[in-house]
């Protein structure tokens, strides 16, 4: 059993995080690449079935492997590798160690078979990812703190739910649940916080763009996808998830369409993409769940690719505002090229990974005759051109070049990472069977029919036409779009300040009132206690004596009456 722990992929990544603290130069780079690869290998070494342990009398299943876990485990390990390859030149040891711990947390969640183990890894992810955000520099401290608060809230909801679930059902094992008790609703709410569901979705667009050029790659991969993974495990077919997911899908597009900062735009695109998956979990048929699994795997890679591209632009130009960028295809050809591939993938263009995966979810909605969700999913698909699918590459790499930006493609390791991710996007799109064999349910779906391909190309082409015709209305403009976080960043602060002023006054009055009463009472009781010394000095000791007497009297009274 112990060897299974030591040889688990999560342990390999934790060891990697430790190794980074003690290595420098070449050895550090080697460790940075070797440990994620080791984790990737170890994913296939995880014994199938489950391993149990005991904690406080609860049966734990620290490691449980099945097809779904293997798929997510492999994709996460791969993404961790791409992330560390991309970050090879990053000097912040704290960020990279945290990134490995964060990845370890994600793999821990993937292989967790019980709620307690899951929660432990869940919190490790929350802490490690907060550190990654905070490594974005001084400006990131505020977002990092808010990020931590939101995730702590999510963690509290989840923990309360888990405690209730265990108390009610007596079982710690993660199984498919129907949200019919308050405990399960709490679990669902806790998971949805991490998925970026309303009303707390602003944490993604608040925190992710604040991280460093390398940190956001890791952030974009793990938190939301692990949430989707656990939702698949615990709440498949829960109808409300369809509507939550669709809301996220539309929100992401609308906010991305207005956004000026490329990394914040990608954050909105992430919410939109996760929304599609959450809706898929809500549909809950085998086809839909297959689609969610496949789309998660695909999205991990193409989102990471797009975030790497944005990271490269940030690192090479120091800018992230589209109003200050443009025409970078000239000076950063490889970044532009791989960026286009990422864009095609997120827009689900045929031959890319997005096409072979997203279409399964939409098809599942169609087969279930869910007209509303189907239309919404089609709208969200078409809307991809408004964010990373067209608007971002258009404005950053083509469009009118701004006053010439001196820039070049990033260093080799970053270029390799982007190229590798781009190749993966195509490989999965051209040979979908490689992805399909890893899915949890048997696949009968055929993505490449003339009808599917034509529908998707028409959809995107005419959406692009609409965007082209109205492009002037969506010119990037400086500024931000207010979100629900206004409630806690502005309104909350104002209310707290008001409340503070109010209560401070009331509190002072109350305290002095009580003190006055207590003082009079104790003067009455202890007449020998003269007015020697000021009130302030005599007060604490005198009051203590008063309370002591009071307690003694109260106790005697209760005892005598009882």
């Amino acid at each position, binding site marked *: 059993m112990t060897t299974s722990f030591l040889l688990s992929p999560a342990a390999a990544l934790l060891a990697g995080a430790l190794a980074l603290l003690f290595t420098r130069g070449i050895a550090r780079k080697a460790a940075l690449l070797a440990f994620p690869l080791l984790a990737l290998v170890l994913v296939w070494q995880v014994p199938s079935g489950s391993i149990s342990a005991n904690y406080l009398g609860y049966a734990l299943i620290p490691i449980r492997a099945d097809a779904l876990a293997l798929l997510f485990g492999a994709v996460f390990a791969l993404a961790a590798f791409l992330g560390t390859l991309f970050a090879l030149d990053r000097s912040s040891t704290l960020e990279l160690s945290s990134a490995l711990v964060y990845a370890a947390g994600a793999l821990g969640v993937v292989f967790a078979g019980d709620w307690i183990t899951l929660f432990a890894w869940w*919190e490790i992810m929350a802490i490690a990812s907060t550190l990654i955000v905070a490594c974005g520099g001084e400006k990131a*401290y505020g977002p990092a703190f808010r990020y931590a608060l939101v995730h702590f809230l999510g963690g509290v909801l989840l*923990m309360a739910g888990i405690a209730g679930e265990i108390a009610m059902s007596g079982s710690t094992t993660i199984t498919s649940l129907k949200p019919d008790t308050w405990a399960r609703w709490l679990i669902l709410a806790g998971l949805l916080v991490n998925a970026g569901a309303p009303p707390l979705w602003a944490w993604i667009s608040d925190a992710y763009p604040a991280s460093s050029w390398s940190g956001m790659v890791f952030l974009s991969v793990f938190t939301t996808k692990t949430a989707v993974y656990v939702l698949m495990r615990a709440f498949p077919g829960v109808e409300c998830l369809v509507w939550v997911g669709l809301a996220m899908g539309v929100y992401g597009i609308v906010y991305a369409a207005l956004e000026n900062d490329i990394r914040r735009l990608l954050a909105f695109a992430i919410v939109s993409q996760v929304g599609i998956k959450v809706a898929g979990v809500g549909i809950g048929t085998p086809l839909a769940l297959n689609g969610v699994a496949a789309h998660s795997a695909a999205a991990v890679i193409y989102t990471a690719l797009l975030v790497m591209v944005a990271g490269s632009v940030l690192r090479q130009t120091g800018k992230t505002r589209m109003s200050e960028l443009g025409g970078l295809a000239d000076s950063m050809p490889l970044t532009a090229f791989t960026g286009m591939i990422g864009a095609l993938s997120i827009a689900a263009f045929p031959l890319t990974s997005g096409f072979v995966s997203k279409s399964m979810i939409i098809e599942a909605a169609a087969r279930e005759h869910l007209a509303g969700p189907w239309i919404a999913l089609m709208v969200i698909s078409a809307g991809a051109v408004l964010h990373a699918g067209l608007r971002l590459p258009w404005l950053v790499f083509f469009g009118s070049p701004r006053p010439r930006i001196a820039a070049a493609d990033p260093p080799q390791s970053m270029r390799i990472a982007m190229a590798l991710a781009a190749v993966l996007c195509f490989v999965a799109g051209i040979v979908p069977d490689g992805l399909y064999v890893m899915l949890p349910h048997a696949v009968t779906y055929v993505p490449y029919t003339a009808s599917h391909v034509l529908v998707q190309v028409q959809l995107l082409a005419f959406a692009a036409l609409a965007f082209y015709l109205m492009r002037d209305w969506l010119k990037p403009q400086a500024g931000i779009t207010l979100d629900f976080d206004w409630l806690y960043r502005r309104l909350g602060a104002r209310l707290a300040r008001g409340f503070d002023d109010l209560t401070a006054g009331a509190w002072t009055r109350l305290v002095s009132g009580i003190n006055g009463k207590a003082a009079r009472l104790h003067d009455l009781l202890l007449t020998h206690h003269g007015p020697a010394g000021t009130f302030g000095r005599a007060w*604490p000791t005198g009051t*203590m004596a008063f*309370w002591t007497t009071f*307690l003694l009297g109260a*106790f*005697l009274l209760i*005892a005598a009456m009882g």
Partner: protein
Amino acid sequence: MSALTAQLAGLQVVVPLLGAILSAFIRRGTLAWAWAALVTATTPVIAFALLFQVWTRGTISYHLGGWPPPIGIEYRIDLLNAFVLVLVSLVSTIMMPYARRSVAYEIDGDKQAWFYTMYLLCLTGLLGITITGDAFNAFVFLEISSLSSYVLIAMGRDRRALVASYQYLIVGTIGATFYVIGVGLLYLVTGSLNFADIAARLGEAAGAYPRPVLAGLAFLFVGISLKLALFPLHVWLPNAYAYAPSFATAFLAATATKVAIYLLLRIAFSVYGVALDFGSLHLSTVLYPLSIAAMFIASLLAVYERNLKRMLAYSSVAQIGYITLGIAIANQAGLTGAVVHLFNHALIKGGLFLALGAIVYRTGTIKLDDLGGVGRTMPLTFAAFVIAGLSLMGVPGTAGFISKYYLVVGALDAGKWPVAFLIVASSLIALVYIGRAIEVAYFRPVAEAVAHAKDPPLMMLVPILILALASVYFGIDTELSAGVASRVAEALIGGLK
């Protein structure tokens, strides 16, 4: 060897007592520290040996001077006080390496030797209260520990330390007086001072003199409650902890209140509980509201506190509330929670106060507003603070979680689900005050005072890290803490009438 083994119980108190006397003859601070460290280090060895004996062979009865009880003084060691002995001696020993630099920094050279003398006396008193089976002997040790702790507190650099110490002295004296009145009443009705002997005669005495027996309990309870800083008798504690030297704060926070709680457990369960129906004592009736008030009000006071030492002091009052809540619940799980939190909180608070002491050592300040960015300039120290802080909140996987877990289970077993809810809800307040410290330490720009600070020397750092890691370790391996605590609770519950 066997002769020595037989005298272990006596040595547990005699060694630090003689050590304290000899220490008074030492002039130089470093030498006094070395001596105090050596003496302290022997105590956990004895304590573990005693725990082992009790664990394998059951309760030990040691007759001081060979006089049999109830005439002579008996040291009576069962699992409960063996556990507390281990706790007190072990935590003190872990802290000792830390003392040298911290004390040298905060206390004038010519007074350091006195400081260590007082510290050893206080340790003697605490171990004595814990080990003795005699009510009046416990009073003597209570006075020894109290008097020496007044001096320890008064030695703080801040002038307000004197006022704080004076306040504590007055209040502590009231507490001791109440305690001795209670013991006197018990002696009047039972004719004995030995706990076990009193317990045996109390049932009969209560039939004849019901009122004095209950009055005795009331005096004992209130007297001890003052010492353990039960809300609202806690007012002495924040100032005393805030202005005492850092090492004294950490030492007293980790041990003194815990020993007072032990005494309460002893009297409530081993004396009164054995003789009378526990419900008829109305201890729970009194403890429930006060404990819950402590958990919330003291925690809220901690939230509004800008001085980190006072913040943690208020937090201590709140945490004591959890322990007394476990006593109020008074079932297997609840008592396990109380006893295990006794242990865990000693580790956690010890670690937190030591970390603050290190921050004082490097920056000279303890005001939250002056400590922006301290997490980045003193990374290991503050990492330990965060770990212990997480444990304080009761984050799963930490020692604090184990305590709260048992308390919640105990409350649920007792059918008091609102209490269970309040335990969880009040833990969230800890999140606020610890979170605020974390926010300042990591997310604020580096303040002037901390700009050139760095982690303290290893001698100080290692004890901090040990306590921080222990507060995680005992969240995972619960054999020594919760395992023993559960046996203790079983024995206490089993002894009830």
